[in-house]
C-alpha cells in the first residue's frame, strides 16, 4: 500500500528535528516536550524512558500528530521516510495513519471501541485504505489475530473487547496497528497494564514482528528494565528534555547522566540482599510551569555544582563515545563528574543544599 507514496529510501525512517510541544494549563504555560531530536532506522527499536510527566507520551503523540488541534503549539519537524508529517494537513495525514505510522496505546480497554467487534476494528483500516474484498479482509483479520497469538481467531474476531482479557485486548491493539503494515510503530506503554508473564509474551511478539516486518518501533516506557531488555537505543527524558541518549550497550556500560544513574540505582534488583536500603532519588520532579533556570535535575542531583544553577545545559555528544549524548556539565564517570561528586561529598551538600552521603547500593558508572 505504501508503494503509491514516494518515500526517500536513503533518509532515516524517523527523523525528529527540534520538536517542542507546549500548551496552556490552568496553572500556566507548559512546554511538555522541549527541543527533542531523534532518529531511528528501519528494523530498530528505540525506547523513550522517563517517569510520569517527563513528556514521553506527548512526544509520541506529537510524532503521530495526535495532539489536540487547538491550544497546543508545536514547533520543529517530524520526518518519516523522508516525508515531513509535521507539514501535512489532517486530511493528508489520514493516508499516513496506518500504512506509514501506527500506534499501540497503553490502556487497551479505553483505546478499543467497546461496541464494535474486534474483527471489525481490525478490518476498518483495510476498508479505508485498501482495495481488498470482504472475504480477503476477513481472511487477513484471522491471519493477523493468529500472528499476535490469539487462539481460535475465527471465534474471537466476532467478540467485543469486554469479552477478552487485558493481554488479549493488547494483542488486538497490536493487530490493528499492524494491519496496514506500518513502517513505524509507536507503542505507548503497551505492557504497563499487563502482568509480568503477559508482558514478556507481548514484548516478544512486538520484537518478532518488528524484525520480521523490518518495522521501526518507538517504545515509550517508564521501565528501564524493559528498555534494557529490548531496545537498540534508549532516550532518557526528564521534565520534557532528553537528558541522555545512547545505544543500550553504551548507556549501561557507561551511564553518564546523573539522572539516569540515580534512576538505575533506585530500582530494586534481584541480586540485592533483602532489606537493603534503596538509593532513592530525593525530592520530586519539578513543576513544568515553574522550572529551575539551569539544569532541571539539579535540585535532586548528587553532582550539582553552582554552575548547574545558572544556565540551561545543552545536550552534547561524548567525544570519547560517539553516539552517546548527555545533558550534563559533570557527567558521571568522567573526571569532571568525579571531581564534582567528591566536592559535594566532602562539603556534605550539593550546590542546591541537598545533603549527600556515600551510598552503598549506588550503581557506579
Amino acid at each position, binding site marked *: 500500500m505504501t508503494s503509491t507514496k514516494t518515500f526517500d529510501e536513503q533518509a532515516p525512517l524517523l527523523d525528529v528535528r527540534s520538536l517542542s510541544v507546549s500548551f496552556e494549563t490552568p496553572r500556566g504555560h507548559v512546554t511538555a516536550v522541549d527541543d527533542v531530536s531523534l532518529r531511528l532506522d528501519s528494523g530498530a527499536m528505540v525506547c523513550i524512558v522517563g*517517569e*510520569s510527566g517527563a513528556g514521553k507520551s506527548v512526544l509520541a503523540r506529537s510524532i503521530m500528530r495526535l495532539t489536540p488541534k487547538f491550544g497546543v503549539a508545536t514547533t520543529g519537524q517530524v520526518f518519516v521516510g523522508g516525508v515531513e508529517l509535521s507539514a501535512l494537513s489532517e486530511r493528508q495525514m489520514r493516508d499516513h495513519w496506518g500504512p506509514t505510522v501506527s500506534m499501540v496505546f497503553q490502556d487497551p480497554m479505553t483505546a478499543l471501541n467497546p461496541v464494535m467487534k474486534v474483527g471489525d476494528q481490525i478490518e476498518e483500516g483495510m476498508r479505508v485504505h485498501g482495495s481488498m474484498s470482504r472475504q480477503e479482509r476477513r481472511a487477513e483479520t484471522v491471519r493477523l489475530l493468529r500472528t499476535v497469538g490469539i487462539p481460535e481467531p475465527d471465534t474471537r474476531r466476532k467478540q467485543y473487547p469486554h469479552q477478552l*482479557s*487485558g*493481554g*488479549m485486548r493488547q494483542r488486538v491493539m497490536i493487530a490493528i496497528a499492524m494491519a496496514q503494515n506500518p513502517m513505524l510503530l509507536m507503542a505507548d506503554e503497551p505492557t504497563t497494564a499487563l*502482568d*509480568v*508473564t*503477559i*508482558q*514478556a*509474551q507481548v*514484548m*516478544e511478539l512486538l*520484537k518478532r514482528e518488528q524484525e520480521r516486518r523490518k518495522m521501526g518501533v518507538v517504545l515509550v516506557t*517508564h*521501565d*528501564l*528494565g*524493559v528498555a*534494557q*531488555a*529490548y531496545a537498540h537505543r534508549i532516550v532518557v527524558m526528564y521534565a520534557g528534555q532528553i537528558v541522555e541518549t545512547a545505544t543500550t550497550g553504551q548507556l549501561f556500560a557507561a551511564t553518564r547522566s546523573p539522572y539516569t544513574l*540515580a*534512576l538505575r540505582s*533506585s*530500582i*530494586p*534488583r*534481584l541480586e*540485592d*540482599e*533483602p*532489606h*537493603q*536500603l*534503596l*538509593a*532513592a*532519588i*530525593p525530592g*520530586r520532579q519539578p513543576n513544568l510551569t515553574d522550572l529551575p533556570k539551569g539544569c532541571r535535575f539539579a535540585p535532586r542531583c548528587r553532582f550539582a555544582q553552582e554552575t548547574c544553577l545558572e544556565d540551561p545545559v545543552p545536550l552534547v555528544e561524548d567525544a570519547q563515545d560517539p553516539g552517546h549524548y548527555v545533558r550534563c556539565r559533570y557527567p558521571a564517570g568522567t573526571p569532571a563528574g568525579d571531581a564534582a561528586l567528591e566536592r559535594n561529598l566532602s562539603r556534605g551538600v550539593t550546590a542546591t543544599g541537598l545533603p549527600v552521603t556515600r551510598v552503598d547500593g549506588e550503581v557506579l558508572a
Partner: protein
Amino acid sequence: MTEVLPDKTAERGPLLSVQNLTVEFKVGRGRVAHAVSDVSLEIYPGETVGVVGESGCGKSTVGKAIVQLVKSKSGSIFYDGRNLAQLSGKELREVRLRLQMIFQDPISSLNPRRKVVDIVREPLAIWKVGDAASRQSRARDLLEQVGVDPDNAGARRPYELSGGQCQRVSIARALAIAPQLLICDEPVSALDVSVQAQVLNLLEELKQEHQLTVIFISHDLSVVKHISDRIVVMYLGRIAETAPAQDIYERPAHPYTYGLLAAIPEKVLALGGETSAAAVSGELPSPINPPSGCRFRTRCFRAQERCAREVPELRPIAPGHEVACHFPLEPGEIPPELASK
C-alpha cells in the same frame, strides 16, 4: 543492616495464623468465583511476609479477608490466638486497632475533602487517644516521621499532593494508633520508580522503629524480594510456593515461580526473550471454572497427566521451603523443556 529474621523457636507463637482460608464470590447465575482456596499461612512477630502473584491470584483478597473486609467462606484467621471470623462487631473493632491496612491507590484512599493533618488525626479521635491538643501534636509527629512537612503539606488536601506524598500520608494514618500488623496492598505500584524507592525505604525504617509485622502484597518480585523475609507465591487462589526470600530467587521449585522470575526484564536479558516468554504460556484461566488438579497446569511447561487428576499438596522440600507441585524443579535447575524452545 540488622538481621530481623524471626526466631521461630521462641515460645511465642505466630502473631497471625490463617488456616484453610477459602473465599468465594458470587458472580451471578449461580456461578462462583474461587478467589482464595484453602490457603494456610503463619506470620511471626517482626516478620515481613511478601505475597506475590499476578492479578487474579487472590493476593489482595487474602489481605482483605485477614482484616475482615471480605467474608471468608470457610477457614479461620487467628490473630494473637483469637479467631477473627467469630468476633462480634465491637470486639473486631478493637482487634483492628492492631491491624492496619495500606491500599494501592494512595489518592482515592484518602478523603479528598479533609486536610492531611485531620486525616492522620482521625484514628486518634475515633479512639479518643489523649486530648485534642495531644492528638494534633501526635498527628504532626507522624507526618514528620513519614517525611511530610506538617506545616506546609499538613494543611493541604490530598488532591494537592503527589501520589508519593499521599502514600506517605496513608502510612502515617495507619501508624497513628500504633498497630502491630501492617498489611500493605500494592503500596508502591502506582508510584514512579524514584518515589517508589523513597516509600520502600520509609517502610523499612518504620518497620524497625515501630517493630511492625508486615504483610506486603505485590505483583513485583523485585520489590517484594527487597522488603521481605519470607515470600508466598500465589496462583489462581492457591499457594504455589513459600520460602525464605533468598531461596525463592535462588532455588525456585515451582514452575510458576520460575516463570514469574524469568519474565522479569532483568532475567529476560540473561535467559533470552523466547525462553522467558515461553516459561509461562497462555493466559490465566477463569477463577469461576479453575482447572482440575493443579490450577497452573494449563500454562505449565512440565504438566503431566497426574497434574490434572490430583491437587498438589503444599509439602516441604527444604527448611522453611514448601512447594505445591508434583514435579518441582531441582535446586538451580534450568528447565530442559524451555531450552529446547
